[in-house]
């Protein structure tokens, strides 16, 4: 028995040591990614005064670069395409854990899908897997049941066979980011784009509890850290959904809603849109200027 246990212990120790060598492979996994924003956040090298949080509407419709140069705030866009409010809450809490709190957070809301279960808005686990060399990220994956508990002990458990020979990911035109995390779309719009005048009634029974909780958590985090939280409503190529806006007004603590100028005919011109839910570069610059005026006025 003694001999068997000795062999098991020696073998386990040897394996444990070999496993540690896989840390290099694990950190290499992060190097393959072109989007380094979350890594910068984890490394605590951000410390910006203004953050933009949101989904693709945050990345494409709001320019942190313009805000950065036109206001006194150093700004950064931490919006992730296809991300839901739960992921945005995770990004903010991670930011606050490793960086100095910003003064302002601009939360770009997805009207009217912010609290609904829609396939286009997800918790972006794919942004977390490449950063599994950070225990914080790995623990988050374990807690969400997306990674084995073994990964807390073994680096190998954080790797997949596809990571071994992975090539560097190259961004497509929607994924490219400037140095402040923006991507204003200069690609041509859809020629068949039609303005939608119909208003779809907002149904609260479609709201998902966990998403609402994340929304409240973002408010709580901002309050606890003395951050001014602004809710940004970028335009869609359709009639403004007042019902959804009212819903947000009901659940936000202070009135800091920045909605686009619904009387501005600029937003009725399809040449300023990439598609129904996203502005193009020209549209985004126009809309960002509205945000800049708001920020400068409310100083």
């Amino acid at each position, binding site marked *: 028995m003694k*001999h068997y246990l000795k062999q098991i212990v020696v073998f386990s120790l*040897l*394996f444990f040591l070999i496993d540690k060598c896989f840390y290099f492979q694990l950190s290499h996994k992060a190097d393959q990614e072109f989007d380094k924003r979350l890594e910068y956040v984890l490394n605590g090298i951000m410390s910006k005064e203004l953050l933009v949080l949101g989904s693709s509407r945050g990345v494409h419709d709001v320019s942190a670069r313009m805000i950065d140069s036109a206001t006194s705030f150093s700004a950064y866009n931490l919006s992730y395409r296809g991300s839901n409010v739960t992921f945005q809450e995770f990004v903010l809490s991670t930011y606050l854990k490793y960086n100095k709190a910003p003064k302002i957070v601009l939360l770009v809301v997805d009207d009217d899908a912010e609290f609904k279960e829609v396939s286009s808005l997800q918790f972006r686990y794919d942004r977390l897997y490449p950063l599994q060399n950070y225990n914080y990220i790995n623990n988050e994956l374990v807690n969400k049941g997306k990674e*084995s508990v073994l990964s807390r002990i073994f680096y*190998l*458990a954080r*790797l*997949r*066979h596809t990571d071994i020979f992975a090539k560097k990911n190259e961004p497509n035109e929607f994924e490219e980011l400037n140095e402040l995390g923006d991507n204003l779309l200069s690609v041509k719009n859809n020629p068949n784009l039609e303005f939608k005048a119909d208003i779809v009634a907002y149904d609260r029974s479609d709201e998902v509890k966990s998403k609402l909780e994340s929304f409240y958590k973002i408010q709580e985090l901002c309050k606890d850290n003395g951050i001014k939280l602004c809710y940004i409503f970028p335009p869609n190529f359709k009639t403004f959904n007042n019902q959804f806006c009212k819903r947000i007004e009901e659940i936000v603590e202070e009135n800091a809603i920045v909605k686009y100028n619904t009387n501005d005919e600029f937003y009725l011109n399809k040449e300023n849109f990439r598609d129904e839910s996203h502005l193009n570069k020209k549209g985004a610059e126009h809309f960002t200027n509205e945000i800049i005026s708001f920020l400068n006025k409310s100083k």
Partner: protein
Amino acid sequence: MLFNSIDFAIFLPVVFIFYWFITQRNLKLQNFLLVLASYIFYGWWDWRFLLLIVFSSLVDFSIGIQLGKQQNERVRKQLLWVSILVNLGFLGFFKYYNFFLENFQTAFSFFGHSIQTSSLQIILPVGISFYTFQTLSYSIDVYKKQLEPTKDLVAFLAFVSFFPQLVAGPIERATHLLPQFYRNRSFDYAKAVDGTKQMLWGFFKKIVIADNCAEFANQIFNNSAEYNGSTLLIGALFFTFQIYGDFSGYSDIAIGTARLFGFDLKQNFAFPYFSRDIAEFWRRWHISLSTWFRDYVYIPLGGSRGGLLKKVRNTFIIFIVSGFWHGANWTFIFWGFLNALYFLPLLVMKKNRNHLNSIAEDSFLPTFREFIAMFLTFLLTVFAWIFFRAENLQHAFSYVAGIINKSLFTLPTVRPSYLFLLLMFFIGVEWLGKKQQFAIQKLFAKKPKALRWSFYIFLIILVFLYSSQTEQEFIYFQF
């Protein structure tokens, strides 16, 4: 509790320590610990069904004692029937109730009568087909006076519920396993090392081979209408390796675990895909079930005695019942029937015991003739697995029709090259170890320890790299 879970990774060392360090000097206590551990292992899934195991065990234990005391043959036969009815009654209710109900309904409506019945939402207790057969074998063996009835309740409960093989076999015979609970067990280094290696190989088969094959087999079978012939063939091939890796992997982990506790379980798989005909395949696939049916159904039916017609009838019965044992679906019955058809020519030509040794016994490579025989047997098996995996018979036939057309000669649209490499590695290792109980038992045995350990570490690395993020159930849990 799944073998490939964190729960088991904690459970096993805890039980091991209690078993060898705390209860070692007291056999009764050691057996009691095994019962307790087995019930925890099973109850982890659903504690309510523990009552079923306990009840079934108590019934067979009491009947065994009565069978030992009773001299009147008529009463003894009645007692045996009670055991059979109780055990098969549970099995029939939990596993086959809805199947029979639906088929009665269909049959009646075919003749123009409609009957009103309501199906039940029945949960199939994990492993019921396995432990039912195990307890039944005890009653039958005691009835046949091949085994003395046990008076040791704890040993009997441990025999029925022994956690390594409780939920998916191997189905042990009382004559083989029960006496092991009566004997003092001392730790055997060689046995424990062997067991550990067998567990490692089992995990490799399950996690690396079966689970990775399952990903593509499921994708192809679930969307079979969208794929060309060659892809469907690849899908069937992947399922062939999935089911082997999954089930034989479970058996390896079970046998290996049992060895850590000083028990010997019977070999359940003996490299079945290296068989040269279907008869040999069935001597090598799920051996504990095949021999169970042979001893308790085929032989009592007359076996190979009597005329050819009787032999053919018995063969069909055995294969169809074996298919039905796997699940309440016509696909399993057809799968059994198909295997009986494969077996028939060998039986008629009296060639069903041609290959009692293993392939390439005295050489490294098979002869050309052996290779062709092995290849054809493998193809027949792959074809039969399509029926086993399909959702229903219609799906199976459309799957087969999808393969047999011109598109079979086009490139498959699903070609996971990494999986082909893994399968080649797997087949290679299995070939090298085909004369052993499990493939890596003696692999590199005479080589330096450093090489052996490097190989084991390599296997563990593969297990980590090719595991999915969530624990995957074993296929045979549903049987």
